[in-house]
C-alpha cells in the first residue's frame, strides 16, 4: 500500500520511464469547489498493445520478469475507494496516458504530500528524460520543467548537488506559492 498519492505518481512515472519514454507530462489538479482531484500522467513511451492494455489493471499482471504487477491496480484501488476512477489510454507507438480521479473531500482519499520529493527523485534519477509538471490548486498554477535546468548545466551523468539544491528550492517555493506546504 502506498502511503500517499505522490508515491503513486512516482510509481506510475517510473513505469513510463521503463517503457522508454523520453518525455513525461505530469498534471495534478486540486479543485475543492468541484470536489475533485485529478492526476494525469502522459508519456511518449512504447505504449501497450491491446492485450496488455486489457489486463494492465489486473493485480499481479506484469510484462516484466521480476516485477510485481501492482502499480496501476493500487492506484485504481486508491481512486475507487475515494469515489473516483482510473482511465488508461495506451497504444503501441502512441505512448500511455493514465488519468486518476478522486473525490477531494472523501475520507478515504489519500493525501498528496511530498510532490517536491517525487519530482526531484524522478528528475535526478533520469536526467535523460524531459519531465513537465503542472500543479493547479483551486485555480492557481505552478509549472516546472526539468529540461531548462539540464540544458544550462549540461546533461552530465553525475549528480551536481548544487543543481539538485536549485531544483529542490524551485519545487518547494513553487508549490508553496499555490498553497501547498
Amino acid at each position, binding site marked *: 500500500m502506498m502511503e500517499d498519492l505522490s508515491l503513486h505518481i512516482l510509481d506510475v512515472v517510473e513505469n513510463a520511464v521503463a517503457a522508454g519514454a523520453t518525455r513525461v507530462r505530469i498534471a495534478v489538479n486540486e479543485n475543492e469547489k468541484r470536489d475533485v482531484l485529478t492526476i494525469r500522467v502522459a508519456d511518449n513511451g512504447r505504449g501497450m498493445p491491446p492485450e496488455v492494455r486489457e489486463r494492465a489493471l489486473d493485480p499481479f499482471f506484469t510484462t516484466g520478469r521480476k516485477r510485481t504487477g501492482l502499480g496501476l491496480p493500487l492506484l485504481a484501488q486508491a481512486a475507487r475507494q475515494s469515489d473516483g476512477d482510473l482511465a488508461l489510454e495506451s497504444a503501441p507507438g502512441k505512448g500511455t496516458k493514465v488519468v486518476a480521479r478522486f473525490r477531494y473531500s472523501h475520507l478515504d482519499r489519500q493525501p498528496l504530500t511530498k510532490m517536491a520529493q517525487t519530482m526531484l*527523485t524522478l528528475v535526478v534519477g533520469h536526467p535523460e528524460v524531459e519531465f513537465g509538471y503542472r500543479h493547479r490548486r483551486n485555480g492557481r498554477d505552478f509549472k516546472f520543467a526539468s529540461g531548462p535546468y539540464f540544458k544550462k548545466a549540461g546533461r552530465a551523468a553525475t549528480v551536481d548537488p548544487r543543481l539538485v539544491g536549485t531544483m529542490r528550492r524551485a519545487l518547494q517555493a513553487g508549490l508553496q506559492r499555490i498553497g501547498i506546504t
Partner: protein
Amino acid sequence: MTKKLTIHDLAKIRDKTKAMTIVREGAGRAKVTVHMGTCGIAAGARDIMDSLLDEMGKHKVRDVIVTTSGCAGFCNREPMATVELKDQPPVKYVNLTPDKIRRILVEHVLGGRIVTEFALAVGSEMMY
C-alpha cells in the same frame, strides 16, 4: 510476443551504457542505484533517495552517478540500493533507512569500505 525495439529504447540503452562507462572510464567515482519499483516505493525508497541527495550535498560530492531502477526480485528486503565503485563489483544493500544510506555514502562511496552489516550477502552460501 517479441518486443519491438524502438528508437526510444535505443536512446535509453545508449544513456544507460554511457552512465556505466563513465564510471569505468574515470569520470565518475561511483554509481548508486536506488531501487524504485512498486515494492521499493511502498517501502520508502523515495526517502532513501532524498537522504542520499541531501548527504551528497553536505559532502559536496560531484562525481557520483545516481539513478533509479525497478524491482530486483527481493521485494521483502526493500528499500534497496546498489553501489558500484570504479573497477569493483556492485554491492546490494537491503532494508535501508535514511540513516543507513547516509552511512553507506560516507563509508562505502566516499571511503571505499563496504558496509557489510547492511549488504544483502557476503560470500556465496546465502539462500533465499
